[in-house]
């Protein structure tokens, strides 16, 4: 089953919630990024987020920047993103969302991008620098293709914007845990709890919290109030420092945090 919403629902029935893992395509190489993504799923990650390296990643901290800079230097092309999605979904059942800054999608063509992503077996897009206000083309393309679309909500978002994010999103809403960019933090902000509560009141079926989560304890803490926990920089760092095995081991460790208490 490739449906993000259904997987998150199932994990909230059988466990405390879903674990969502991020890795950039093409880091350290295309092949290794595919193997690492597979390893995450084999070690308990429920939903994958594959990031497309981009020249100007304003939402990313130093760990992910370093990885995507290397991927670009190694010759990452957008076509590799679709290839990675295809190769990963051929091997594991977890749904694969693509996380991308907006300009590559615009240049590829929003409709063409949606068609090729769907054909590759992708579940949808997470768009860190596209707010629903500017997303007319993508809303139409995702309606047409049935792809999920994950928009972000921040602690600073007004109630009206929270409602807009909930209405525009499908799959889940990405709750930005703290005001900031990607990067592991020692404590995940209290703001996340309040934000998830506001998203639920606005009708969100699933809110997943990201930015700063790096330990099983933090996953468990987040899953007390949210439907999913998103881990990025910590996994990228494990992959950078210790290779695929280390990334898999961290995924297994993080997955302990999804156990129901």
């Amino acid at each position, binding site marked *: 089953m490739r449906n993000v919403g259904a997987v998150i629902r199932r994990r909230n029935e059988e466990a405390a919630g879903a674990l969502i893992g991020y890795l950039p395509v093409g880091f350290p190489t295309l092949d290794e990024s595919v193997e690492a993504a597979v390893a995450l799923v084999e070690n308990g990650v429920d939903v994958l987020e594959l990031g497309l390296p981009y020249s100007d990643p304003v939402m990313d*901290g130093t760990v992910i920047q370093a990885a995507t800079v290397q991927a670009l230097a190694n010759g990452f092309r957008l076509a590799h993103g679709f290839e990675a999605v295809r190769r990963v979904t051929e091997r594991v059942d977890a749904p694969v969302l693509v996380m991308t800054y907006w300009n590559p999608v615009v240049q590829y063509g929003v409709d063409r991008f949606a068609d090729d992503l769907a054909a590759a077996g992708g579940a949808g897009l997470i768009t860190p620098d596209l707010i629903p206000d*500017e997303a007319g083309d993508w809303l139409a393309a995702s309606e047409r293709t049935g792809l999920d679309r994950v928009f*972000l909500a921040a602690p600073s978002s*007004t109630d009206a914007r929270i409602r807009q994010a909930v209405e525009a999103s499908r799959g889940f809403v990405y709750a930005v845990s703290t*005001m900031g960019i990607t990067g592991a933090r020692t404590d995940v902000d209290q703001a996340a709890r309040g934000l998830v509560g506001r998203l639920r009141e606005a009708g969100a079926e699933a809110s997943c919290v990201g930015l700063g989560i790096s330990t099983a304890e933090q996953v468990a803490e987040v899953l007390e109030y949210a439907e999913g926990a998103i881990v990025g920089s910590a996994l990228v760092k494990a992959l950078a420092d210790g290779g695929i095995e280390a990334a898999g081991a961290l995924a297994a460790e993080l997955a302990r945090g999804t156990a129901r208490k």
Partner: protein
Amino acid sequence: MALRAQTGPYFGEFGGRFVPESLVAALDELSEAYTLAKLDPAFGEELAELGRSYTGRPSIITEVPRFAEHAGGARIILKREDLNHTGSHKINNVLGQALLTRRIGKKRVIAETGAGQHGVATATAAALFGLECTIYMGEVDTERQALNVARMRLLGAEVIPVKTGSRTLKDAINDAMRDWVTNVETTNYIFGTVAGPHPFPEMVRDFQAIVGEEARQQVIDLTGGLPTAVAACVGGGSNAIGIFHAFLDDADVALYGFEAGGDGVDTPRHAATISKGRPGVLHGARSYLLQDEDGQTIESHSISAGLDYPGVGPEHSWLAALGRATYLPITDDAAMQALRLLSRTEGIIPAIESAHALAGALDLGRELGRDATILVNLSGRGDKDMETAARYFELLDGSAE
């Protein structure tokens, strides 16, 4: 509708707010504060007073006949933004945004800078208003504009050399945006040009429009009529839109923006965004952009740090699409020759950025002939560029090694 009446968030198909959701509240707050400030006569009066008693407004115009002899005999008139306090047009915008920062009640400001002129202006305003100040500057630019780094630090600002990407203005904006996303509750981002997400393109334009408003009247007073053409260099486009804006609805006045042609627009080393780019999204707005097939930004190159940027403000993209303004490239060498020519014929050393407009005016003059009057925005002075110029022209003893 009059072209002058156009406001954001969109200029035709350009502009918008392509930003992380975490920044929307801050952009909304800024838009609202700016809307209220525009309606408040006290705000306009305070800004005008700062212009008079701090910046030195109105800046004068200077006719440069000895320089104009090299431009086919056309009349050339310079709008002397180089004489402003801090040495460029950047202060006009910064004082406006610093006043807004005070209204919003934030105590810390951040800014990106390329040539260092916007950084110096921001550090200056921060000193004047008692604000904490952090400036992001690409490492390449901290080297080629070292004097401005020292100025900013002397003024009490923290200067952070940015070591990512091309280590120039584009990357400084990325890091400033990351800082803003993280510290938005306490921090205002004083953006230096007419690019970026709404409300920056409109707001920065409004703060720079004084340049053209003054110059239009000054040229009429001097010559009895409007200029034939108005010329300015274009990095992000703030000095250009500043001088263009008063003339947008004067259909007989031709508007020329001169982009950095670097080694030449047929080489990969240039920053001629409108001449050679195509529409895309960068730094929060849809506009012309130097990018590859996949939408990855291509690194720009210019001898001038202030023009070394692969994007451009959305209003310029719109004016280009409408055909209201024309954008042409000027090579590094043409700019440097114009810099030296103005220095030697008129005793005015321009910034390398502004020298692109001067080189463009030389070409325009030869094309338009003796009857033409060309108004050039001399956006800044060349002090900061002495090291680059000394190396380029081998002016220092032993510098030929």
